[in-house]
């Protein structure tokens, strides 16, 4: 045995050095894989919320807002969710690269597969209605959420009766073609509708239902609806 070999073995024996147990490494490896999976799932959730917001957005109302279509698109994109998608994709890549064999795959391959994974999983979550649910939970529980999730606060957009846009909660149904709503500023409006009023999607004219109205302001507290849309969706 060489002198150096003796030295190494002496050190190991004197300092009572032992190999770390196998479970220590397995646990570490499982933890990295778990972190990768969590990053991918959270990224997919962010994708499904962004998808819901984009699909539910009223892309056709730029006319009422005196905006160009391009400016309306830029103001309506869910930036905070887009940022969350990018952040969790980055974390997924970081975690994958730190798995035992993660170095073998190229960065763009891992990133590409993470994007595909997030899109597929996010689309499944979206089809289960999770995007709208998360968006609603955030809106109800985080006061500034509406202001930060994109450049425009939806409630502000739909509180512009002079421009023909009004949103709020149905308080009561007066007659077949008349009902009251309370807008997001707490003002109560009498709404008129007629046979020509377009009722879009799964909207229900029942008490406590949140709706969006396109039409015209008739008097101080009266609004004629040409179109009624559900608050969530179109």
């Amino acid at each position: 045995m060489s002198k150096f070999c003796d030295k190494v073995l002496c050190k190991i024996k004197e300092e009572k050095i032992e190999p770390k147990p196998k479970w220590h490494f397995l646990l570490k490896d499982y933890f990295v894989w778990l972190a990768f999976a969590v990053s991918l799932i959270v990224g997919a959730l962010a994708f499904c919320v962004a998808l819901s917001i984009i699909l539910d957005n009223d892309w056709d109302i730029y006319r009422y807002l005196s905006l160009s279509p391009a400016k309306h698109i830029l103001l309506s994109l869910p930036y905070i969710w887009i940022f969350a998608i990018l952040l969790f994709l980055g974390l997924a890549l970081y975690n994958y690269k730190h798995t035992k064999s993660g170095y073998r795959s190229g960065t763009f391959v891992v990133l590409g597969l993470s994007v595909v994974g997030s899109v597929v999983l996010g689309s499944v979550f979206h089809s289960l209605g999770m995007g709208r649910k998360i968006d609603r939970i955030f809106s109800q529980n985080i006061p500034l959420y509406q202001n930060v999730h994109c450049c425009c606060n939806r409630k502000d957009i739909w509180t512009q009766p002079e421009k023909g846009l009004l949103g709020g909660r149905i308080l009561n149904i007066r007659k077949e073609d008349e009902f009251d709503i309370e807008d997001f500023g707490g003002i109560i409006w009498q709404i008129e509708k007629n046979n020509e009023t377009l009722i879009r999607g799964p909207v229900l004219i029942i008490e406590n239902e949140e709706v969006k109205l396109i039409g015209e302001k008739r008097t101080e507290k009266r609004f004629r609806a040409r179109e009624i849309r559900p608050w969530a969706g179109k």
Partner: protein
Amino acid sequence: MLDKNNCSEKTDEELVALALKDQDFFACLVEKYEPKLMRYVRRISAATQEDAEDLLQEIFVKVYRNLNDFDPDLKFSSWIYRIAHNQVISHWRKTKVRPQVLKFEADEDFLKFIATDENLARDTERKFSGEEVRKMLENLDKKYKEVLVLKFLEGKDYKEISDILEKPLGTVATLINRAKKQFAKIVEEKNIKF
């Protein structure tokens, strides 16, 4: 008692399994890899013989501590070189004495290999003497020197280099190609005369 002859008949993987049961068998791995790793450590660091020995001791202790982490999908030599490589880098970071220039130990085989490399000769339209190559290598980026050391000095193939440096195979191939190109560029730019 450890039988040295017994050691040479066993594969690295078998020795790892035996060392986990009886630490005396770790001596077989130390004996086998000491000269190779000593050369490698000195090639990628500016360490003196004494410093390299201390570093090597730390490397073997780390290898022993992490024996259970050895993945049989890898060659044991790739795994132990990876630990050595990471330990040298970590040593540089700790002591903050990372050399700007890697010192290559005189290795005529390597110099001859590079100097007579056909692709390189084609790129630079000439062949080089060992001394010329040695001087030009000092101007190469660290990342290129690292792969050149492993490829030409340590005789590792692309897969082994990929496992040692923990980089994808494609990246290793690119690094080697770029190393050769940078080498050719240095020759052209500096018009090195010897």
